[in-house]
């Protein structure tokens, strides 16, 4: 994905109208990527439609229906305080996907500009940014996210910020590497020769040409971020009760594994599927955006 030889070709054709079609065609042919895409699309659709679906409130309790097995009335059963699990799964999908997408957006919006600055200017700017990145990368992603989330205080928003910030170094390093190879290209030299400003060169000549690998990385990081959100919620640092999140549902379900296994089954399966979906899609995108592969 960080293959430097990708860049000259991508650079030369970056703005040509033919390319998106070619990527799309390649992506369409990739069966596993399409499966991933469909799974992701399905979850996104369910999450978006949550308020419109005819399901009970995810926080509505019924003391008479504790830990009921799946039935026609409650398709996925009920949980430890009599809430409908299907409804909690659907609303939980919102939390998971939002956490995945928003935290990656945070990471991209901070990481990519810093990476471009570091790669483009080099020198002291690069030294400071790159060393700070190294320092952050020395800490395992999840540990960093847990520490940040604990520091910010438990809430879904803070969990997203924590995950986003923890993923920043990945994007800085990736972008910086890409920029380093792109900035020596003839067309960048050309832009500089005709007297364009740094800002314009960075935004119009460099950024578009480092974009494909970032897109791939972002897709794959969404998967990681979803797992991170589930982990934080599992530890009580993410979504706060009574609002549902797959991670916190799993945390509760663990106490009833032998009495009510379905409580753990659904959130576990959902996390697995959505993460696999994003991974397949990301892999497919990488292949599709790689000009070397036909």
């Amino acid at each position, binding site marked *: 994905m960080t293959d430097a030889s990708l860049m000259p070709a991508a650079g030369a054709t970056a703005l040509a109208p033919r390319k998106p079609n070619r990527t799309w065609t390649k992506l369409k042919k990739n069966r596993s990527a399409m499966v991933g895409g469909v799974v992701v699309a399905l979850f996104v659709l369910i999450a978006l439609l949550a308020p419109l679906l005819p399901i009970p409130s995810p*926080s509505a*309790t019924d*003391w008479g229906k*504790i830990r009921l097995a799946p039935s026609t009335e409650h398709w996925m059963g009920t949980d*430890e*305080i*009599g809430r409908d699990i299907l409804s909690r799964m659907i609303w939980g999908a919102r939390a998971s996907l939002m956490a995945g997408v928003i935290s990656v957006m945070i990471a991209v919006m901070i990481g990519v500009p810093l990476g471009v600055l570091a790669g483009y200017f080099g020198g002291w700017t690069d030294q400071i940014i790159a060393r700070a990145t190294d320092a952050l990368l020395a800490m395992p992603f999840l540990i960093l996210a847990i520490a940040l989330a604990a520091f910010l205080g*438990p809430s879904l928003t803070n969990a997203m910020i924590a995950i986003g910030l923890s993923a920043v170094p990945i994007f800085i390093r990736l972008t910086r590497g890409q920029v380093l190879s792109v900035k020596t290209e003839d067309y960048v030299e050309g832009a500089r020769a005709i007297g364009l400003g740094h800002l314009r060169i960075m935004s119009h000549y460099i950024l578009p040409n480092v974009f494909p690998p970032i897109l791939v990385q972002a897709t794959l990081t969404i998967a990681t971020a979803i797992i991170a959100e589930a982990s934080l919620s599992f530890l*009580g640092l993410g979504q*706060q*009760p*009574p609002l549902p999140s797959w991670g916190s549902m799993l*945390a*509760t379900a*663990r*106490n*009833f*594994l*032998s*009495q009510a296994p379905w409580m753990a089954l659904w959130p576990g399966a959902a996390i697995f599927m959505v993460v696999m979906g994003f991974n397949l899609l990301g892999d497919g995108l990488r292949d599709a955006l790689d000009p070397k592969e036909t």
Partner: protein
Amino acid sequence: MKPTTLMMTLLGTVAIGSMAAAADIRIGLNEDPDSLDPAQSRTFVSSLVYESLCDRLFNTNTDMEIIPELATEWEFSEDGLSLVIQLREGVTHHDGTPFNAESAMRVLERNQTLPTSNRRGELSSIVGMEATGEHELTLTLGAPDVTLIAQLAHHAGRMYSPDAAAAADESGRTFGANPVCTGPFKFAQRVEGDRIVLERFEDHWDAENYHFDRVIYQPIPDTTVRLANVRSGDLDISERTAPSDVPQIRNDDRLQLFEVPNIGYQGITINVGNGPRAEGPLGSDARVRQALSLSIDREALNQVVFEGQYVVGNQWAAPGTTWYDERDPVPARDIDRARELLAEAGVELPLRIEMQTGNNPVAMQQGQVIQAMAAEAGFEIALRATEFATLLSENAAGNFDMSQQGWSGRIDPDANIHPFVSCEGANNDKKYCVEEIDRILQEARTVPDFESRKALYDQSREILSQDMPLIYLYHIVYFYTVRQGIEGFEPYADGIIRLRGVTG
């Protein structure tokens, strides 16, 4: 090494390994205890550790009657102002120093005077102490105190080496980090949050009745994990098994289940006077607290979270027990009345409040049930789960609106109410302070006659159920899961695990 030698060595190692394992007993705790300094402890789990570590002057039998331990005989004077205690002879502390009237006196003095002591209120009636013999201790009281023996049968009467404590205090070390006591096992190691290891004390006066080389206490807050550890044989005894696991344990041949109703209570403590967080509607208006209490369906809570195995309540004493005031039965849920009260109080709804809770799954589940019930009356409760020792220290600092907690209970009623609602009470983190209550409770300490004493507690109950600084919810039944093969275990209503006579 020849193959045979190697085999022999390996076999030898295995044999020694299993011998060592056989002489250990592992006990799973629901929380990590706080300080292991008997002067400072305020958690229930610490008493579980102390029972093996530090003997007490008095103990209790399964009927919760006082029995001798380090004190062999005791007698109050006619006027109730002096208590003479005969102490057991031939007892040594773990550091080899002898236990006698002098050392016991120094321990009680330290419990009374140490600035960080939580025992001061419990021992406040003692105004003078004297070693009237090598093993005779005479206590002089400022006023008759019918609670004293019961206090000395708990933390306040746990005997430790005064020399070791003084040395630690003087050098600024924490005595609780390396306690030196009198019990059948001595302190070996503590890894916070992981384990407390005690080793057999050969010179204990009752050593023949203790059959393990080491006792290992492991705090495992997750009830399922704790149970799984007993199933797999990694724990021998687990305290406070979740009621939802009880039916399964009954059907499991590998496990034994013991149960006993607890003498304490569980509920919600509300910050009514500790710092700025007491100034909201909840802390400043009793009607809001009454509304919260009325919004909770105690029976449903018991059914949902505890499979109906516990006893619902509304006072510190459980319904049907000696000290319960029958004139004030457990209230039914009344959402309309709760809304009315909130309207009378002029509170803007929803009223946002934060409830601190332990970070174990049962506490979280209970918190969510209360959250859902109270929401119908107009409360918007945010749950904040913290580990138990943090919860206590945050409460002490006034950093809470309300907190979900309870009290393991003591045999004398005074200890179940006085520390929580008297102005200077050691456990009064909510800083509830009403002169009338102080007066009544103080008087109750001096009245030996049951009827008149009960009348006083009933009187205090009337004020407390109006002011409601504490919402009592239910009374626990202690369930213990014990590995098959452990013999001689008996459950006690105070929840404390006694290892005397236990084998395995």
